[in-house]
């Protein structure tokens, strides 16, 4: 009776010790990860802090104040009145939405024959697509710009032409084509055979039978194309000439010129412009951090 109680107590102590050891080794891990997490978000935190400081507070104060002493929303109100964020947001939505839509359609169309048909020139097509991965946009942007000009796809012609110029150079990517090809490769051949027997033509096989089966791949392609297009800065800053056509990244960069050294406004504007993508990321986080779609975003 007594020894049983004693054993119980010993066991209890042992498990406590074990837990203590586990805690000590994981404590070190947590300290490092908390430190890196803080480093990852600190630039934003500091930006947010600055954006909430009123004119009565010196934003260059030594020592710096993380918590605003003169707390105010005025910078947000001020920048909101002076800068048409809604317009930038809508422009970004149109540009990113159009890019996503075209990528889905063109990649799916091209991925299908590459995965499931035999035809002359298949190998060459395959390697030609592969070759485009090796060509960085930055190296060919000048001729792309000249072609866009030649095709009259610039915002000085019309807003529609401007969006066309913004979107079309990124209408399809090798990444998308390969992703869709891979998805189509995984479908059993009986699916097509059954559909043909039922009287479908090729296009119906594609739209009614195969496309619904590659929805997960389409979702992945849509999400990553969206993120890439949303953050794109180089190309919009080359082609856009009218402020009313600016996308969010171009608009945010423009804050620096518009408010020269008014860091309260620049900070407030940058924070405002970042909110939509943070919401999108948190809603779709499993696609990004699960690791299943490794290497899906362009570096």
């Amino acid at each position, binding site marked *: 009776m007594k020894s049983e109680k004693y054993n119980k107590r010993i066991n209890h102590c042992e498990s406590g010790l074990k837990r203590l050891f586990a805690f000590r080794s994981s404590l070190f891990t947590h300290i490092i*990860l908390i430190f890196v997490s803080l480093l990852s978000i600190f*630039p934003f935190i500091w930006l947010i802090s600055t954006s909430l400081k009123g004119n009565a507070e010196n934003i260059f104060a030594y020592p710096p104040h993380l918590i605003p002493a003169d707390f105010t929303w005025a910078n947000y109100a001020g920048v909101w009145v002076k800068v048409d964020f809604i317009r930038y947001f809508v422009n970004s939505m149109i540009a990113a939405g159009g890019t996503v839509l075209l990528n889905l359609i063109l990649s799916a169309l091209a991925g299908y024959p590459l995965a499931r048909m035999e035809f002359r020139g298949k190998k060459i097509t395959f390697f030609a697509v592969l070759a485009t991965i090796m*060509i960085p946009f930055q190296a060919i942007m000048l001729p792309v710009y000249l072609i866009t000009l030649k095709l009259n796809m610039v915002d000085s012609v019309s807003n529609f032409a401007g969006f066309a110029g913004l979107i079309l150079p990124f*209408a399809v990517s090798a990444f998308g084509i390969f992703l869709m090809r891979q998805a189509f490769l995984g479908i059993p051949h009986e699916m097509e055979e059954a559909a043909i027997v039922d009287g479908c033509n090729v296009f119906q096989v594609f739209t009614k039978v195969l496309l619904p089966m590659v929805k997960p791949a389409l979702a992945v392609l849509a999400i990553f194309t969206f993120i890439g297009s949303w953050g794109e800065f180089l190309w919009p800053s080359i082609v856009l000439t009218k402020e009313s056509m600016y996308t969010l990244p171009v608009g945010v*960069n423009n804050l*620096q010129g518009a408010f020269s050294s008014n860091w309260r406004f620049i900070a407030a504007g940058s924070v405002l412009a970042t909110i939509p993508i943070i919401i999108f990321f948190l809603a779709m986080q499993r696609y990004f951090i699960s*690791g299943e779609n490794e290497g899906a975003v362009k*570096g």
Partner: protein
Amino acid sequence: MFKYYGRCAPYLFLLPAAAALLVFFFIPFFQTVGLSFFDYSESIYHPVFSGFDNYVKMFQSPVFYKVLANTFVYLIVAVPVLAILPLFLAVLINQKIRGAGLYKILIYLPVIVSIVVAAIAFKWLYADKGILNYIVTSPGFNGIGWLTDPDWALYSVIIVTIWKGIGYYMIIYLAALMSVPKELYEACDIDGANFLTKHLTVTIPHIMPTIALVTTISAISAMKVFAEIYVMTKGGPLNSSKTIVYYIYERAFENLDLGFASAMAVVLLLIVMAFSFVNIFFFERKKYQL
């Protein structure tokens, strides 16, 4: 498999993508090479064929060597950090610790945020009387001209690129770590191996292909850096933070020297194509089913 489609069907399906790739990839590719043999410096409307003059001019230009050197510094600083640090973090997170999901989200956040916003946020940290200089000066050191001192500007920009890339590569490593057989770790634990030996003998050899992959893709993206420099330094001071892509942009769109810019673009093409070739044929064969 029976052939249920007509002879033209495959080509019709390929047509839209092929047209887009032709107009916005292949034609510009050959045009880049073509433009590099023309002289636009007299008039942008009447280019003159000039053979290799742009290349000669480029190889005689001190800025070209400065830009190449800067790009090289970018590679040797950013690539090793981006190959090693995210791996270390991935190993830590992979230990089935509490809060792993939250750490992943926080560390991945910089990847998702626009590079322009990131660059502005850092510009603010780097301000002359900014918070970083407060940290540097409070123990008594002199403040640093993070973006204004030619000795520092390039490194300040590199830090932003690294900061923005860590989460991305960490997720790639986490995916790779899932494929390491658990039995090997259990064997290590039985043998009493410590953290370091465990990962040096089991983890690293197992994910060597991923380390190589991360090395090449981070090298390729380091070659393509633009927005950080455009937003923070415009390549200055004294060209100290100018890299290839920024220089191409400047010569093409600000100086309208299309020939010279194209010659630079050909140099960029050759370097990136070499990296990509290695990447595709050695590390990503499976992804493209070669």
